[in-house]
């Protein structure tokens, strides 16, 4: 967690080359940084600004606006349960309750071992398969509690080598006191 690696820089430069203006590559570049560190760090923001000929303040504005970029520590696996109407009607609330009980954390929190973060999100655009959960780039549709348990069991018992150190909490001095962490 720090500055961008040479590989990440190369990836960002490659993406930027597709656009007439480099800063058009900002959103994918932030994903590259997030893939590298798990979160988008201030150092990465400064590096991206330099690579894309934007200012750090501009990049930080974008990175902190979109909820899919994490600025604070998150777990290795991020379980995003859709909480919008269709999913709610089809029982996403029960999934949420079950996750809270099973993982021992509240929505928006991370397990102490740094393995899971779980949050509810707005519509994932798959109402036909409600209730839906997003894990990484994979959709789990018509999800039951039983299937959810199986997913968690699978991830929980993955070998330790596949389980990096949890990212350290980034002190974010601009956060309002009492504001909810993302």
């Amino acid at each position, binding site marked *: 967690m720090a500055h961008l690696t040479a590989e990440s820089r190369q990836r960002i430069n490659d993406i930027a080359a597709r656009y007439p203006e480099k800063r058009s590559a900002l959103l994918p570049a932030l994903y590259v940084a997030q893939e590298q560190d798990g979160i988008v760090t201030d150092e990465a923001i400064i590096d991206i600004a330099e690579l894309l000929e934007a200012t750090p*303040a501009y990049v930080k504005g974008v990175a902190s606006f979109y909820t899919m970029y994490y600025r604070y520590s998150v777990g290795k696996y991020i379980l995003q349960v859709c909480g919008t109407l269709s999913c709610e009607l089809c029982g996403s609330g029960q999934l949420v309750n079950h996750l809270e009980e099973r993982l021992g954390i509240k929505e928006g929190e991370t397990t102490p071992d740094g393995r899971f973060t779980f949050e509810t999100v707005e519509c994932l655009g798959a109402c036909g398969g409600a209730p839906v959960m997003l894990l990484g780039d994979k959709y789990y549709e018509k999800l039951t509690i039983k299937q959810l348990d199986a997913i968690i069991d699978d991830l929980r018992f993955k070998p330790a080598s596949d389980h990096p150190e949890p990212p350290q909490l980034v002190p974010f001095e601009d956060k309002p006191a009492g504001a909810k962490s993302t």
Partner: protein
Amino acid sequence: MSDLVTLTIDGQQIQTAPNTLLVEAAAQLGILVPVYCYHPKLAPIGACRMCLVEIEGMPKLTPSCTTPVKEGMVVHTQNARVEKARRGMLEFLLIHHPLDCPVCDKGGECPLQDYTYEFGPRKTRFRYPKRHWDKPLQIGKNILLDRERCIMCLRCVRFCEEISDHQQIGVFERGHSQCIGTVPGHSFDSQFSGNTIELCPVGALTGAPTRFFGRTWEIQHTPSICTGCAAGCNIRIDHRQQRDVVRLWSRENKHTDDGWLCDRGRFGYEFVNQDRLKDFKILQDGQLVDATTQQATVKAASILSKHANSGSLGVLASPILTNEELYAVEWLTRSVLQTSSIDHTASAVNPQAVQLHSVVREAGFRSGVLTDIDEAAQIVTIGVDLSNDQPITELRVKKALFQRKAQLVSLYPETIELGRYTEHNLIYEPGQEASVVASLAAAVRSGGGEGVVGQAARLLSSEAPKAVIVGWKLQGLSDFSALAKALGELASALGPDVPCITIYPNCNTRGALDLGITPGWLPGGVAATGSSESGMTGIQILEAARDGRLKALWVVGAEPLLEADPELVKAALANVEFIYQGWSLRDVPVDPDVVLANVTFAEQAGTFTNTDGRVQRIYPAVKPHGRSRPGWQIVADLGRALGKTWEATSDQEVFEQIRQAVPAYSQIKWSEVGTLGVQSGASAPPAMAGATG
């Protein structure tokens, strides 16, 4: 014009230009629509929702700051529905606002405060804890941020994006956490950062140097002119009971500042308040002691008379003195003391290049004014880095580049900030100015060529209206005639009637040149002849003083001393009888034999001539410190002590004398100078077309 749009606002019909925003049309009728995010110089954004109005036929209320007028529109700005919306918006804006008006710098001149009294709810219904942030954050050298007060109008961010292009502040987070901020390690140090203080409609951005300056209702305002550089930005001096200057504010004049100020000017007023000379002084037994005005004047006059008419006196007068002061100094020096060694600068200036604005005119350019930049599609800067040399003119060039897609060709020994916006950076070795200009001129004439010069030349060979900007650094060239010739070639290559704007260093350098505060030139830009031709330049005066060829120096204002090598200055001043007239001894390394206490620009009436020859008035804002007096009165006293009477008894009378002595000023009517100034004749364009605002 027949293409006006007719609409009705609150029952009144108005005809206005198409694309006028509703909020502006309402203002034309004198109807107040409250706004926060709207600003006439920034692009509409519709962020604050304060300006909602009802348009008949539209289902919902509409923001008037983003809606252009349309034929037949019927708009209501004052009905119950609109008033309810305003009340609601203010209730929202105030949810997290700390309501700390009693300790807020903005209190008393705050639109949030004013509109809350006028339109807002009397009490809040919000029963939860308010959001709290650390405050104030110093986000830049001059700027403090209080995010609790911020209402997210984004004027500051938009200014940094659209006007200065220094995007050092941004909008972070979203929803109720949304805030303005900087990235650690990248502070808001733009040299235009102070403008965001003025733009901020609440007390979220305040000036670090001016924090807690006082309550706004105890502050008086006086129009004046910034002395930071030669742009002649119009300022408002804010002062407390005429005692001390507490801040400077912009005072829009489209001919000079276009509504903005740079931080160097805005925060560069401490010399008015600090280290001031309050009394006249004389040197007794190696000690400076307070003296009466008369004692000091008599002593100074005796030194001056001793060296009058003998070629052993040198005079340096600061280019931030008023025209009236400079004219008086010139009168005493040449007419009474029969001395021709007088200069306003101690930096190296080639004698051929002193009157740079005349040089470019003789080269074939039209004498340009700053507003010519607003008309130009192609701008050529030669030997000038506007970021340092005249920041506010840099903003004017940026406006041309950003808003009108003007193109820039820059000739400078280094990459300058404006160079970011052009591929035509002609970077040359110092000393190569003439050959670079000449090769550009040749390439323009042949319609192109190799390399950067060729590309720039291809650009410039089009018919597009052009403006050329030259900087005073060119004055220092040892071989100036080659450059003058090259400028002549460029002028003829670019075609007829191309304006050339001369950038001078100080707020009244142009005035000093017009008034003959330079060896070899008499008032009115008349070349000196005969005995007065042999006057020494500033640097020669200091060297001669050091070497004992001069016996006395009269220095008015310390600025010329700061331009020379400090060792030379020290040696020169220690070696002569030294009369110092100024507002502070801070920059005077040697105790003078006589000290005459002069006021600063903030304490007197007078005029300055800016870089393009615009004569602008200053007005006394604060009372003179101690016994200090306007320079022309001190000079008049010296004249009387020497047996010569100075006719003028007021600044207006001095100006009348200047009018008679300087042909370029002869058409200027004192009553017309007003608060916005008048262009002096020599450089007035053929027709003062209405410049864009």
